[in-house]
C-alpha cells in the first residue's frame, strides 16, 4: 500500500467512522447477538443457555409459525401491488397540469403522518360492521346485488382485507417518491413521443413506465420489506376489535391477523422466549434477503429487456 493509498484509506475511515461505530453498535452487534441467541434458551431476564438447533427445529414444526407466515404473505402479496397501483396513480394524476397541487399533495400525504394510535382508532370506526362508514357506503350497492357487506375486523375472512384497505390509505410516502421520480423524466422524451403521434396511454407505456422503473423497483422493495414486518396497526386494531379479549397478539379474530412479527413479538415479550424469537427473526431476515434478491434479478432482466 502506497502512502497515498494509506492516506486515502485513513480519510475514508475518518469520514465513515461515525457509521463504523453506529453500524457496529446498533446493527452488527445486534445482528450477531441475535444469531447467537437464536441458538440459545434465552428469556432476557436470565442468562442465555446454549441449546443448539432446538429453536429452529421447533420453529419448523410450529404450525403457528406457518400460519403467521401465510397471513403475512397474503397481506404483503395484496398490499404491495395494490399500494403500488394506488400511489403510482395518485402521483401520475398529480404530475399532470392541474391547479391546487400543493393541497392535493398534502391530502394524499396526510394519512402517512397520522399517529398510528389515532389512525387505528379511526379505522376501527370506519370498519365497524354494523354502522361503520365503509359499510354505510357500500351496503346500498351490495344490497342491490342481494349481498350483505362483511363485518370486516370481526370476521376471519375479511379482517386481513380490512387491514389492507387501511394500508392503502397510508401510501403517501411512496406517492411522494414517485412524484419526485416523475419530475426526473425528461420533457423532451414526451415531446418526441408526441411528435411520433403516441397516444396518452402509449406515452405512459413507452416513456413514463420505463423511465420510472428504477423508482418503482426501489419503492416495491421498501414496501415489501415493510409489509413483511407489518405489526403496529394490526396489533392495535386486533386488540381493540377483540374488545379486550387477549392482548392484541392473538390475531383476533381466530388468528386471521396473526402476522409474523406479531407472533414473534408475542413469543419474545409475552412468553419471554427471546431465543425462539431470534430464530424467527433470522428466518424473516433470510426471507427478505431472498425476495429482494429475486426482485432485483427480475427487475434487471425486465429493465435490460425494455432497453
Amino acid at each position, binding site marked *: *500500500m502506497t502512502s497515498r*493509498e494509506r492516506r*486515502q*484509506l485513513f480519510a*475514508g475511515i475518518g469520514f*465513515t467512522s*461515525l*457509521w463504523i461505530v*453506529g*453500524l457496529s*453498535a*446498533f446493527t452488527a*452487534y*445486534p*445482528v450477531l*447477538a441475535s444469531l447467537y441467541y437464536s441458538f440459545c434458551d434465552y428469556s*432476557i431476564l436470565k442468562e442465555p443457555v446454549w441449546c443448539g438447533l432446538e429453536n429452529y427445529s421447533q420453529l419448523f414444526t410450529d404450525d403457528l409459525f406457518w400460519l403467521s407466515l401465510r397471513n403475512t404473505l397474503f397481506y404483503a402479496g395484496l398490499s404491495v401491488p395494490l399500494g403500488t397501483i394506488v400511489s403510482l396513480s395518485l402521483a401520475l*394524476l398529480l404530475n*399532470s*397540469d*392541474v391547479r391546487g397541487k400543493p393541497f392535493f399533495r398534502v*391530502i*394524499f400525504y*396526510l394519512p*402517512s*403522518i397520522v*399517529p*398510528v*394510535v*389515532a389512525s387505528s*382508532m*379511526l*379505522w376501527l*370506526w*370506519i370498519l365497524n360492521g*354494523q*354502522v361503520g*362508514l365503509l359499510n*354505510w357506503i357500500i351496503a346500498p350497492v351490495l344490497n342491490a346485488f342481494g349481498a350483505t357487506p362483511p363485518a370486516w375486523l370481526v370476521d376471519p375472512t375479511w379482517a386481513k382485507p380490512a387491514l389492507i384497505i387501511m394500508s392503502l*390509505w397510508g401510501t403517501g410516502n411512496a406517492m*411522494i*417518491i414517485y*412524484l*419526485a421520480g*416523475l*419530475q426526473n423524466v425528461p420533457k423532451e422524451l*414526451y415531446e418526441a413521443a408526441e411528435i411520433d403521434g403516441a397516444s396518452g396511454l402509449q*406515452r*405512459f407505456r413507452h416513456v*413514463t413506465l420505463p423511465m420510472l422503473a428504477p*423508482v418503482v423497483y*426501489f419503492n416495491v422493495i421498501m414496501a415489501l420489506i415493510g409489509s413483511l414486518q407489518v405489526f403496529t396497526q394490526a396489533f392495535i386494531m386486533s386488540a*381493540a376489535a377483540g374488545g*379486550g379479549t387477549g392482548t392484541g397478539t392473538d390475531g383476533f379474530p381466530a388468528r386471521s391477523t396473526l402476522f409474523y412479527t406479531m407472533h414473534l413479538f408475542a413469543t419474545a415479550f409475552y412468553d419471554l422466549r427471546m431465543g425462539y424469537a431470534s430464530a*424467527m*427473526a433470522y428466518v*424473516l*431476515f433470510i426471507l427478505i*434477503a431472498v425476495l429482494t434478491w429475486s426482485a*432485483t434479478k427480475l427487475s434487471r432482466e425486465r429493465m435490460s429487456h425494455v432497453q
Partner: protein
Amino acid sequence: MKARTPFTRPVIYALLGLASLAFLTPFLWLISSSLKPLEQAMALPPTLLPHAYYAAIDGSRSEVTIDFTLQRGGIVADATAGEQAGSRVFLTPAQALARAKELQGAHRVSTGWVHVTEKRDAAEAGNGNPRWDIVPPQAIDSTIRFRWKNYPEALASLGGSAESSDGSGSVSFWVFLGNTLIVCLLGVVGTVFSNAIIAYGFARLKWRGRDAFFALTLATLMVPFPVLMVPLYGVFRELHWIGTLLPLWVPAFFGSAFNIFLMRQFFLSIPEELSEAARIDGSSEWRIFWRIVLPLSKPVLAVAALFHFLYAWNDFMGPFLYLTRKETFTLSIALQNYQSQNGGVQWHYLMAASTVTILPVVVLFFFAQKTFIQGIATTGTKG
C-alpha cells in the same frame, strides 16, 4: 405544458376529487369527532356534525342526550313505593295497571319515540341519577354546536387525571410535546450531520474497501427490526439508557443506511471538478466537504431532515420499548392513555389530541413539500 397522463383534464379533476374525498373523509370524521361530546362521538350511526339536542323533561326544556329509539310502546311513570321507589320506570301497560297504586305521573309512549336523558357536566354527574323521559321525535329540537372545550380538556387529561390532593403523577401536555421535540430535533440534527459526513466518505473519496463497505451498508437495509430488537435492548440496558430519551435520538448521530444511500446519490451528482480545484489549492478533505459540498447539498439535507422528523414524530415502537416513565413519554405513546385498558376509550379526547398532534407535521409538510419533492428528485433514487 401538456398533461403527461393518458387522461384529459376534466377526467383528471374528477379522479383527483374522488381520491381526495376517499383520503379526506377519515380526517373530516377525525375533526368532527374531536368536536363532539363523548356520547355523540360514539353514537351509532355516526353523524357528521356535532349537535346539541333539547327536549322537555317533566315539562321543562333542557339539553339532553339521545339514547335510543323505542322498539315498542309502553308507560313511563315515577314509582312512589316498592323496590324502585323514587326512580322512573318504563313498563308495559299491563304492568302499569298492576302497579297503578305505586305510580305517579304515568304517561303513554309509543313505538318510534326516543329515550332522552338530561345532559350533565362531569361536575354534576355524582348527584344521583340524571332525569330521563321518552318523547316523540318531533319534540326534540337541535342546533349544531361544536364542543371546542374538548381541546383544552383533552390536553389537560392527556397526562392522567390530577385528582390526588397534590396533583402529583399528572404530566402536562407540554412535557410530552417537549419530549417529542427533543427526540425529533436532536434526531434531525444527528441525521443531517452524521449522514452527510459518512456519505461524503462513500461518495467523494476513493479508498480500498469502500465499495464492499457500501454494499454491506445497503445490505443492512434488509435487516428486519425484530432481528435487532432484543440485542439492541440489551445494548441500551448496558448503557443505562432504558427509561430515558437517549435511545430515541443518539443513534441518529451514527448514521443510517437509508440516509447514507440518499445523500451519497446526491453527492455523486456534484461535479468532481469543484473538489479537484480545491484539492489543488491545498484544501483538506474536511474543508472541501464543509465549504463546498455541504453548502450545495441543502436540498438533500432538507429531505433527510424532514424524513427523520416525520419518522420520529410518529415513532411508536421505539418509545413503546424504551420509555418506562410517563415524564419521558412522547406524544405518540401518550395518546394511548385515552385508550385505557378497561375497554373504555375517550374518543372525543383521543380525536382532539390526535388533531393537535398531527397539526404541526401537516403545516411543516405543507410548507416544505416542494423542497422535499425536489430534493428526492435530485437524489434520483436509482439503485
